[in-house]
């Protein structure tokens, strides 16, 4: 416990202000209303919509195996899964990684999850039914469940992530990269790479694609809590390509404050999802406040122009049930 008290137990507001730290109230009151037009949230809140935009732009996304829309679809699950061993199950509107299952081995009796858990058939059905009834979606809205390809992690990062896959969060302000963070699952996070769920976040130097220091449970960390490996100086493979995808996607979505989540596969980065209300922990991971870049972006920022045909946006902004079922195309 000593190391907790060796440093400050808290920071004074003026210290944070000097450090340019953006707080939650500041984000909600000043940043989001200015940078993020409300109707555009529909493009990122539904992961299927984001996916469609990515496909339109030629950005690689995990292959969609199936989309479960109604309860009867659950019964056809074996047909959807189609003998595949590895896949990811996620609610289309789930926030913060909730309700996501990473399946490493599927057989007749159930699924083995990333991180070692095991689910029986009835447990799987229950989870799918809960997801579809909207337990994991914002405001409890009925939801769809996506079954998609599990991206095999890049060998350079595979041994860093404890029982899961590392992913990259790139934060973009008005379409330009502001900060980035590498998120590593830990023993406590159960294979998931969300900071809320005990994952480790490493700040990335945007130009060099190299990590410096990290954050774990809201505390600055310099070694991996499970493997004790130093967290500084890790070179992220395919970094420029990842940035390029993030910038392209942010330009098309049109949200000025946007977090793009990518995972590094063996043959390059793949976009998982985007988040219009990206969390503020990235500041701790980078040991740097977000306000200077935000001020800069506001000072000389040109508003984002939609980069896709208007018809596509129109159809995405009010999703018709069934129009986003790639498996039926």
């Amino acid at each position: 416990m000593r190391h907790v008290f060796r440093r400050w137990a808290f920071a004074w507001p003026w210290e944070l202000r000097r450090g340019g730290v953006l707080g939650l109230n500041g984000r909600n009151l000043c940043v989001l209303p200015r940078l993020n037009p409300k109707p555009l949230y529909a493009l990122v809140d539904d992961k299927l919509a984001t996916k469609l935009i990515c496909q339109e732009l030629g950005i690689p996304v995990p292959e969609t195996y199936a989309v479960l829309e109604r309860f009867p679809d659950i019964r056809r699950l074996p047909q959807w899964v189609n003998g595949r061993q590895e896949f990811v199950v996620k609610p289309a509107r789930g926030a913060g990684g909730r309700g996501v299952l990473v399946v490493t081995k599927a057989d007749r009796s159930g699924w083995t999850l990333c991180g070692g858990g095991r689910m029986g058939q009835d447990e799987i059905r229950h989870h799918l039914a809960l997801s579809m009834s909207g337990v994991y979606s914002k405001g409890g809205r009925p939801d769809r469940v996506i079954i998609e390809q599990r991206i095999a992690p890049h060998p350079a990062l595979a041994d860093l992530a404890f029982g899961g896959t590392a992913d990259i969060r790139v934060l973009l302000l008005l379409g330009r990269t502001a900060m980035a963070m590498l998120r590593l699952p830990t023993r406590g996070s159960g294979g998931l790479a969300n900071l809320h769920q005990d994952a480790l976040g490493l700040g990335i130097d945007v130009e060099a694609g190299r990590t410096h220091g990290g954050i774990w449970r809201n505390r600055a960390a310099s070694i991996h809590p499970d493997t004790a490996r130093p967290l500084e100086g890790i070179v992220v493979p395919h970094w420029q390509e990842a940035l390029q995808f993030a910038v392209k996607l942010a330009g098309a979505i049109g949200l000025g404050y946007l977090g793009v989540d990518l995972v590094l596969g063996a043959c390059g980065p793949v976009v998982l999802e985007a988040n219009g209300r990206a969390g503020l922990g990235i500041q701790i991971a980078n040991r740097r406040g977000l306000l200077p870049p935000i001020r800069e972006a506001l000072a000389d920022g040109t508003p984002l122009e939609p980069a896709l045909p208007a018809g596509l946006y129109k159809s995405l902004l009010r999703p018709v049930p069934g129009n986003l079922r790639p498996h039926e195309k």
Partner: protein
Amino acid sequence: MSWGTPFCFPQTQDLFSAAVLGPILNALVECPVERNHALEHARVAGVTSAILAILGAACIGLRLLAGTGTEGWADVLDLARLPEATRQTLAVLLILPAGAAITSFVRNVVGFQTFGTLMPNLLALSFLGIGWRAGAVVFAIVMLVGLSGRAVLGRLRLLIGPRLGLVLTATVLCVAATVSLAEHFGLALWAGSILLPMVVLTIVIERFHVSIEENGLAVSMRLLATTLAVSGVCLALLHWQALGRLAVRFPEGDLIVAGALILIGRYDGYRLSELWRFRDLAGSGEEPNK
């Protein structure tokens, strides 16, 4: 000119300025670099809040000067002339906004989340009728039944709607049994007063269960504890006889509360919890506006 604030417009940055300087700063200070709609919002909010507060205070002041019992328009504002029962109900109603202000203060300035903004108020209101002791008993029963019911029903793998219905059924049965038992042992418990607490507690239980599903048990317990603590404060306010008399005598005091609510709603400084959360960032980074 710079206030060292995140943006170029004047901000209510910390607790002190939020409470004291906020309206003045927001109303008076010109934006040094650029005008934008956020600045307009901040100023409009500051001005509105100041007007409301001044209006309320002026009204109270004028009526104090005029003295009680004066005939005329001012008498309409004095609810103390109403019959006793009406007055007590109105006293409770008039204090509710203060409870809402406290809850939003805890949520947005302190940074502890509760189950909804109005829930602590509702909880306090429902416990007001039966007293906090009986309230604690009812609460304990509902929580116990709700949680154990959850453990049992978890095995049935039901959807969340019917599951909550079942929890409600079990709770209702338990409360009925308690009332009946109390009657048997000679304790008169008016079942009617339990109606409101039951409904409110069932909503709390529902929120609690959904939150366990979404955030896990630890976070949900913390949420519940915060909700209870805040509703305890609200209950203390509602119980405060002197405050009730004051609220009935000067109902325009709620205008001041409304002004405070607007200020809290425009508070874009750091939450108290963020002073802890971002403590590793103290003094890091470069100077803003450089």
